């Protein structure tokens, strides 16, 4: 009988059928014992075959060897010995059980004997045959056996299920579905665990292979980066929003919101307080609505991301103060109509911002320069009383202050200069007097410019005149026109555009800073030198006259400031030294020529014929000296220092010294 024989044909089943009344338990027992013995035998058979396969040994032996051959077979394999013993024990146990069940079990025992004898007979032919079958056939047979075993197991499982369906518990049959569920669960657990193990193993292998593949890794990274980039923008946006809210002082709100939300969460678990929950949900909805509104506001504010945080804070402060002011006024329409006229009040509110600080600084600088010019003019006036055409600009400024006829300072200045331009024969014959007059003219120009800057831009300078000069020649007028444009816009648009106002202020302040810086530069450069203002005037006139004028004294008092001090035209002076001197002497010569050229206001000095590269560093030195504001005297003193150090070194005997240009580069 093969193991795959249907159980219906088994004798136990026949017996159960034959005596159905009350003897089902015995039949069941015999049936299960039979099945168990079959299973054990098959498992042993399988185990033996597996061990044989693993050992790569192709020896065959009988499961039931003769007792006489036991001694001979014992050294063959311990595995076969153990398997034989296992099978033998199983058979003995089975036969003993069979004997205990009665005479009918003898049939089964005979059948068993037949089975094992059959197996024995089957294996007899192959006894003592070693490696007669090739490994392939052997593997096929094993696989077939395994398949048979699997079928048997499956059939046993189904049989057990079907058998269990008949099981009664306390006289009532257990529902089939419950039993089936239990059985299936038991099996599926094993199957699922096996599946998971195999899947994990496969996954490990696959990932192990994949992670060594650079293309795969780069593709994964690329995808991660793409996803991460999109998420990063969201994160950054959220962080920026949080930062802005923190800067705008919404920390308390957000904290209270989070507290509210936390309490809401905690309260939601409390099932007893339903009413409270309702209230909280209402609160939460209102809070959410508020947050949405704030988010909208933030989105709107994100449109001007170019503004810095400080500017945002300033803007916020400004808006808050305006709101407060509106509330105080109580009449919004009235406020809008008066928004443009109340610019002074708003400027006071901006006073905490950096713009107002910059304005204060500029005004202070302008006042200082004005004071300096005034003091300088006072000193000059005491000396030059004999020059009637030289009206001191103090007097002139007094005229400006007193003049209510709307005459511009420019016109006054021009008038003054024209009056100076036609001097009497006895007044300006002397050149020195003429130069002094020119100095004062330049002072007038500078002072006029400062007064324009201070007066036309509505600074809080009570001491300044309110003259409205609309000349477009000076740079300050650009700022004035811009501010006026701003006023017009302000009048057109009743709602104040503070962003535009701040931009306008920024441009205006930039221009003011530029003007003040130039003025300071002029003052620093020319304040200590008596000839300075004359030189300044010369530069200013040179900006308008690009070529030399051969004869006649020039009185080009057009009132224009030099636009760019560096770009005044002049002859291109090229120096060619034809001296066979040493390197040091050549460098010294060039530096001295540079000093002399600077004294003569040569705008740009070129050195020709420096093929040996001795003067390569001279442009660098000159640029450094110009950048650091060295004067001719300073440079000469540095050269003297170098010469003295060199003399000392030569006296000591140390000749390894730097060249002049290297030394200047280091020490300037």
């Amino acid at each position, binding site marked *: 009988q093969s193991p795959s024989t249907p159980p219906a044909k088994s004798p136990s089943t026949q017996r159960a059928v034959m005596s159905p009344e009350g003897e089902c338990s015995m039949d069941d027992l015999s049936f299960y014992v039979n099945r168990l013995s079959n299973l054990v035998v098959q498992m042993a058979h399988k185990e033996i075959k597996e061990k044989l396969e693993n050992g790569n040994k192709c020896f065959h032996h009988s499961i039931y060897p003769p007792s006489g051959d036991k001694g001979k077979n014992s050294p063959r394999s311990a595995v076969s010995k153990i398997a034989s013993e296992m099978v033998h024990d199983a058979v003995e146990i089975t036969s003993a059980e069979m004997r205990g069940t009665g005479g009918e079990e003898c049939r089964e025992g005979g059948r068993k004997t037949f089975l094992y004898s059959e197996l024995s007979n089957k294996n007899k032919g192959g006894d003592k045959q070693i490696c007669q079958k090739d490994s392939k056939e052997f593997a096929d047979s094993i696989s077939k056996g395994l398949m048979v075993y699997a079928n048997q197991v499956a059939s046993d499982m189904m049989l057990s299920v079907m058998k269990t369906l008949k099981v009664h518990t306390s006289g009532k049959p257990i529902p089939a579905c419950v039993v089936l569920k239990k059985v299936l669960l038991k099996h599926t657990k094993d199957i699922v665990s096996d599946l998971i193990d195999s899947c994990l193993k496969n996954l490990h292998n696959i990932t192990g292979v994949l992670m060594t593949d650079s293309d795969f890794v780069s593709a994964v990274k690329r995808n991660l980066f793409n996803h991460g980039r999109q998420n990063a923008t969201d994160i950054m946006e959220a962080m920026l929003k949080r930062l802005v809210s923190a800067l705008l002082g919404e920390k308390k709100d957000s904290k209270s919101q989070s507290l509210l939300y936390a309490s809401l969460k905690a309260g939601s678990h409390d099932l007893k307080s339903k009413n409270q929950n309702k209230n909280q949900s209402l609160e939460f909805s209102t809070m959410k609505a508020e947050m949405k509104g704030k988010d909208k506001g933030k989105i709107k504010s994100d449109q001007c991301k170019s503004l810095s945080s400080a500017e945002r804070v300033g803007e916020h402060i400004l808006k808050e103060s305006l709101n407060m002011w509106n509330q105080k006024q109580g009449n919004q329409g009235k406020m809008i109509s008066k928004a443009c006229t109340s610019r002074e009040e708003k400027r006071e509110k901006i006073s905490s911002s950096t713009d107002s600080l910059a304005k204060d600084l500029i005004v202070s600088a302008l006042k200082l320069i004005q004071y300096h010019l005034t003091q300088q003019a006072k000193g000059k006036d005491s000396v030059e009383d004999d020059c009637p055409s030289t009206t001191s600009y103090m007097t002139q400024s007094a005229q400006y202050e007193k003049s209510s006829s709307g005459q511009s300072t420019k016109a006054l200045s021009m008038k003054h200069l024209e009056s100076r331009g036609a001097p009497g024969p006895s007044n300006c014959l002397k*050149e020195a007097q003429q*130069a002094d007059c020119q100095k004062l003219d330049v002072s007038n120009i500078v002072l006029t410019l400062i007064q324009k800057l201070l007066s036309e831009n509505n600074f809080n300078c009570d001491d300044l005149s309110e003259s409205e000069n609309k000349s477009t020649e000076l740079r300050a007028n650009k700022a004035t026109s811009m501010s006026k444009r701003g006023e017009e816009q302000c009048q057109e648009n009743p709602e104040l555009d503070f962003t535009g106002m701040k931009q306008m202020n920024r441009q205006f302040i930039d221009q003011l800073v530029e003007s003040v810086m130039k003025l300071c530069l002029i003052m620093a450069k020319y304040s*200590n*030198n008596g000839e*300075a203002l004359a*030189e300044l005037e*010369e*530069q200013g006139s040179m900006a308008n006259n690009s*070529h*030399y*004028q051969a004869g006649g*004294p*020039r009185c080009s008092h057009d009132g224009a400031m030099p636009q760019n001090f560096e770009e005044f*035209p002049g*002859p*291109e*002076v*090229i*120096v*060619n030294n*034809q*001296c*066979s*001197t040493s390197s040091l002497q050549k460098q010294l*010569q060039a530096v*001295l*020529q*540079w*000093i*002399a*050229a*600077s*004294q*003569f*206001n*040569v705008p*740009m*000095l*070129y*050195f*020709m*014929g420096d093929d040996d590269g001795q*003067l*390569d560093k*001279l*442009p660098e030195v*000159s*640029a450094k*000296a*110009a950048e650091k*504001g*060295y*004067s001719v*005297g300073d*440079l*000469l003193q540095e050269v*003297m220092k170098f*010469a*003295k150090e060199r*003399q000392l070194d030569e006296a000591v005997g140390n000749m390894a010294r730097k060249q002049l240009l290297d030394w200047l580069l280091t020490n300037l």
Partner: protein
Amino acid sequence: MMSYLRSFQMSDPIDWLHSSRGVCKVDLYSPTERREQERKVICFVDVATLNVEDKGSKDAGGSSSGGDLTLEHLEDKEIIVIKDIEKKEQSKTEGSICLFKQAPSDPISVLNWLLNDLQKYALGFQHALSPSASNCKHKIGDTENEHHRYPHENCYSVYADQVNVDYTTNRPQSLRVEMTAAKNTNNN
């Protein structure tokens, strides 16, 4: 600037050490960067290293004979400015040659020889930049010797119709000075 240069006189002492004039920019001349701008080429030649050609020497000697100028007897503080006024019409370049004798560097007084050299270079620049208004413009052909040498300025100017100077050469030995027009001026 010209008016200032005009008013400036070399006889006026320049306080070099305390001059607050800002320094100008310096660059190396490259002939490729030619611009349509007036140029002044000033060539400073140390007479100690001057190797004048025979003809030039004769001319120079001729001029010196007329003007009592001998380069050998040139003192340390003296400078001769030779200008080429004719070339100005040909192009925008106006050239000047400044012949000077270098002062020996006095090891004791650094300031002295520095100022001495500075004075000479200043003379050269002055003459090169303001030829018409120079107080030191004495043609070689002038008969009165006292006008050849300005008493307060140790400089001479030679106004020649044709002065050929090889500006482009780098070796001072190959410098070629021709002052043929100076002789003509002398004849005139």
